[in-house]
């Protein structure tokens, strides 16, 4: 018998979702990297959020403000009592980002469907193109929970205090090499490399390749602890725009139970452009 996750209540399995599709107390929410996937087929009854068009502020570089978040929940028929279940493509990359944002505004009844789209598909569960409509709700968000978000000032403080940073990007992004790939103009950063002292633990090492589910506690513990990322430390995770690092944030905080983990959503597209910020290659 393997060790259970620290907070197994944050996960639901695909079969559970399949057997509870008509539960009025839940709202299934698809959040993908590819913005067309939902339109081509989604879990029956699910609604769509999109990183760019729904979750980001159209003007400032930031995600939704509190009032806009309340409006979004209302329009998706999510009330304060609704259990939000997120799933998506790419091993739940953007699904976990959406969960992180929901928790930031206090929606603690948020869960991830383990395995996301890939596992639902592998198990031949049904897809539909029918878009549901739910009556608008009255939603009241809580004040933001800053304990799960790191801003650039927090990263500078982290550096000064020599506390750990986890860079969850691929090794070539970490080394700075990827900025020079031919034909792929990398938007977003003037400089390549990583924040000094950061350890590179690509987010994808936390998931099983076969069905996109999370790895076991044993595997995750050895993955992070062997690199010095232990539960007694205050940790900041970052990537390029904060979505892959929200995945690692989720793994550390809820699957392994680390009490102090923050996601630096400014990530490399901010740090790699900051004048005078230290960089290591």
């Amino acid at each position, binding site marked *: 018998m393997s060790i259970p996750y620290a907070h197994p209540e944050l996960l639901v399995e695909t079969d559970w979702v399949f057997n509870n599709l008509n539960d009025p107390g839940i709202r299934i929410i698809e959040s993908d*990297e*590819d*913005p*067309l*996937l939902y*339109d*081509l087929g989604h879990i029956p009854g699910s609604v769509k959020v999109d*990183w*760019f*068009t729904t979750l980001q502020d159209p003007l400032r570089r930031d995600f939704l403000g509190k009032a806009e978040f309340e409006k979004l929940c209302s329009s998706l028929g999510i009330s304060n009592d609704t259990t939000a279940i997120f799933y998506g*493509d790419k091993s739940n990359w953007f699904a976990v980002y959406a969960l992180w944002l929901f928790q930031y505004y206090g929606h603690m009844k948020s869960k991830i469907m383990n395995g996301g*789209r*890939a596992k639902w598909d592998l198990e031949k569960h049904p897809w539909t193109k029918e878009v549901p409509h739910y009556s608008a709700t009255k939603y009241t968000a809580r004040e933001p929970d800053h304990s799960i978000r790191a801003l650039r000032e927090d990263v500078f403080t982290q550096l000064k205090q020599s506390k750990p940073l986890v860079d969850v*990007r*691929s090794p*070539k*992004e970490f080394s700075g090499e*990827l900025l020079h*790939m031919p*034909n*792929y*103009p*990398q*938007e*977003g950063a003037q400089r390549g490399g990583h924040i000094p002292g950061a350890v590179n633990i690509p987010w994808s090492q936390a998931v099983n390749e076969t069905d996109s589910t999370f790895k076991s506690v044993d595997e995750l513990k050895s993955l992070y602890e062997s690199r010095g990322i232990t539960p007694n430390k205050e940790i900041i995770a970052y990537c*390029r*725009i904060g979505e892959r690092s929200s995945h690692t944030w989720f793994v550390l905080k809820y699957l392994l139970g680390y009490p102090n983990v923050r996601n630096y959503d400014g990530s490399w597209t901010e740090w790699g452009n900051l004048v005078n910020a230290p960089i290591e290659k």
Partner: protein
Amino acid sequence: MDSAIPKALKEIIDDFSWCEGQEKLELLVQYAESLPPLPEWLQDDQSKLVKVEECMTPVFVQAERQDGGLIFHFEVPAESPLVRGYAALMKQGLDHATPEEILKVPGDFFYSMGLQQVLSHQRLNGIAAILAHMKQLAVKEMASK
């Protein structure tokens, strides 16, 4: 080099520019669904999908000469409909164009489609990358003449 956009591609650009917001994505969905499978003679091609890092989708593209113009064949995984949509619209827009015409398509042509209203910069990279691939094939074709 002078830039110019072949008529078929220009029509697609106009269609997109007339669509508003979500309609642009709906149009992309239609293109994604219309991408034809690879012709049989290419299905066992060993070079097949080129593996690229994270965020980016592996894309296979080949060109064949037909009456002075080029015909493109794409393969893009089903789990990446956005890139499938890009491939389908580029195929429709540039099939039968000559290599010279393909090289004249400006690298930022897609801005006039207004896709930046509904897609982040990172996701727009895909369409630029596909055009770059097609131009490489056009250059190869010119060199082999």
